[in-house]
């Protein structure tokens, strides 16, 4: 081979490659070493996102049980489960959205409007309860579709979109209720079905709780065992790569927001069953609580990592703190304090785990 190459060509062949090599390459001999799990705890948390919240839950239960042994009584557990059902249900939708690196601030507002629509149609308008239910779920889907359409097709940031729809849906809810509470004179109304109690000895579990658990199983299956689920993680982790791999990113995002909207509708149904009426005086904390549950449950705010079962554990942690602190007789601001710490702790763990991937990406 002739060695009198022009300077530029010579340097290129000597270095082997262009600038990309410096950016991505590094020492060729590193390649084998990097993949080996050097930090076992980190890799464990990485592989099992629900592990850390599960440990927190166990510790929380032990501590609060120690402070007040009434925590683990059948009666308390039954109550906690009933209260968990609504938040748990809403948080499923929130999880799937967060897996795509989105966020939904409007979840509570959508749920409140949906239950007002269901109750108005059934009681005030007098439609059959199942029709009211179906229309309500349809509204949930439309609300999700509005969020999804603005986020996926117009490309607006989900945070801003849902901040906007939070205001809009809150206002619509207030307009629909006009400040009143809608009661259900007929206890066998289908909309109250989710409040039916199934007794196991001293445990009184409502059908709403079973419905919530069923939804967790279904969505966990969809995420873990179907191509749709893979694509949710893929789009959340890397939209460009997903697009190159032939995934229709926009319609996938749309499907996620639609599904979440329907889940919020089911959450509304569970809410009506739990309290036996429909009003707008429901804790406005639901929006933030669902985000708290998802984040504590180990789902990354940056998308692409997390499991829905972790969210259930996260929601349980929120519930145990709420009930446990009340039973311990401390003032309620301690709850906010504790939840705040948990969220920061969860985000810190996520940050630590993400350092694993970005670190080796630069290797």
């Amino acid at each position, binding site marked *: 081979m002739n060695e009198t190459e022009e300077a530029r060509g010579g340097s290129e062949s000597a270095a082997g490659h262009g600038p990309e090599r410096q950016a991505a390459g590094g020492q060729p001999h590193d390649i084998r070493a990097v993949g080996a799990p050097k930090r076992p705890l980190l890799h464990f948390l990485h592989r099992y996102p629900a592990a850390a919240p599960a440990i927190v839950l166990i510790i929380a239960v032990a501590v609060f049980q120690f402070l007040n042994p009434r925590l683990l009584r059948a009666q308390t557990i039954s109550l906690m489960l009933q209260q968990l059902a609504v938040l748990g249900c809403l948080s499923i939708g929130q999880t799937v959205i967060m897996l795509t690196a989105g966020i939904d601030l409007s979840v509570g507002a959508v749920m409140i409007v949906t239950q007002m629509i269901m109750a108005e149609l059934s009681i005030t308008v007098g439609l059959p309860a199942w029709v009211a239910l179906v229309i309500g779920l349809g509204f949930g889907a439309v609300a999700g579709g509005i969020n999804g359409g603005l986020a996926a097709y117009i490309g607006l940031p989900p945070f801003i979109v849902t901040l906007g729809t939070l205001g809009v849906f809150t206002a619509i809810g207030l307009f629909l209720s006009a400040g009143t509470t809608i009661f259900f004179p007929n206890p066998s109304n289908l909309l109250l079905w989710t409040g039916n109690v199934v007794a196991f000895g001293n445990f009184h579990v409502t059908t709403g709780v079973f419905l919530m658990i069923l939804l967790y199983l279904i969505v966990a299956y969809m995420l873990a065992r179907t191509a749709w689920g893979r694509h949710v993680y893929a789009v959340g982790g890397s939209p460009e790569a997903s697009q190159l791999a032939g995934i229709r990113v926009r319609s996938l995002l749309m499907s996620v927001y639609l599904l979440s909207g329907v889940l919020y509708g089911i959450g509304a149904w569970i809410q009506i069953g739990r309290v036996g009426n429909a009003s707008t005086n429901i804790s406005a904390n639901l929006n933030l609580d669902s985000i708290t549950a998802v984040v504590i449950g180990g789902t990354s705010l940056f998308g*692409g990592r997390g499991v829905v079962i972790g969210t259930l554990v996260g929601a349980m942690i929120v519930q145990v703190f709420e009930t446990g602190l009340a039973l311990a007789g401390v003032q309620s601001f301690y709850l906010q304090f504790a939840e705040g710490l948990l969220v920061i702790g969860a985000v810190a763990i996520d940050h630590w785990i993400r350092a694993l991937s970005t670190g080796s990406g630069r290797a």
Partner: protein
Amino acid sequence: MTQSGERDAAASTEGSGSTPVLAAQGLSKRYGPVVALRGVDLELYRGEVLGLIGDNGAGKSTLVRCLSGAEIPDSGEIRVDGRRVAFRNPLGARRAGIEAVHQTLGVVPALDIASNLFLGRERRRPGLLGTILRMLDVSEMQRAARRDVERLGIETLQDITQSVETLSGGQRQAVAVARAVAFGSKVLIMDEPTAALGVRESGQVLGAVKKLRESGLPVILISHNMPTVWELADRIQIMRLGRRIAVVTPRSHTMQEGVALMTGALNIAA
């Protein structure tokens, strides 16, 4: 220089007016004020490796992104086996049998190796589990992924269930290459497939390219590594500032002449 005989044969069949497997004519693409492609042509014939070289920003990646559906050209035509196609997304190109390893790789860090190999074409379980419950056939995909990686001879990927974000840059590149090789049925496009690879892994990938050519699958290979291009390519398309400057062969032009064309130090009619 033992392969020059083969190259002569290849070059002569190309010249004989057979339809290119993949052809582009007058492709233009601009990004706002930046003109990336200014009416570029390209022909890829059966069983050949077409090298694509040019300085940084010459438009090589943009050209192959248009050919693989990742980008929609502003104007110009793309033909597959002589038939006009208009890819609206990468899926369209994939369906036409065109598979690409992009410079940006296109692997998803959060998913494991097997999931990445099958991303966008997942296999479902046979029977009702697959049709009604749409259940993925995870074990079958892992088996196939292991086979594909082994066939490529890339030993650095050992655990197929390892998530890609725990891999090194070179290993990620190996995943992207393995995926393209496993699925490319008509044309394989590789945009700097060895940029992040070590000496040994580069050799394995380039060995795979040779094997693919032997099996008749045409390859477009982009590289800044001139010796590699001159060793592997049957023909070399040189690009500069969004234009095709020349098409040469390793026999007609030396590496230095190629580089001179590429940088504009030498001019010939394109």
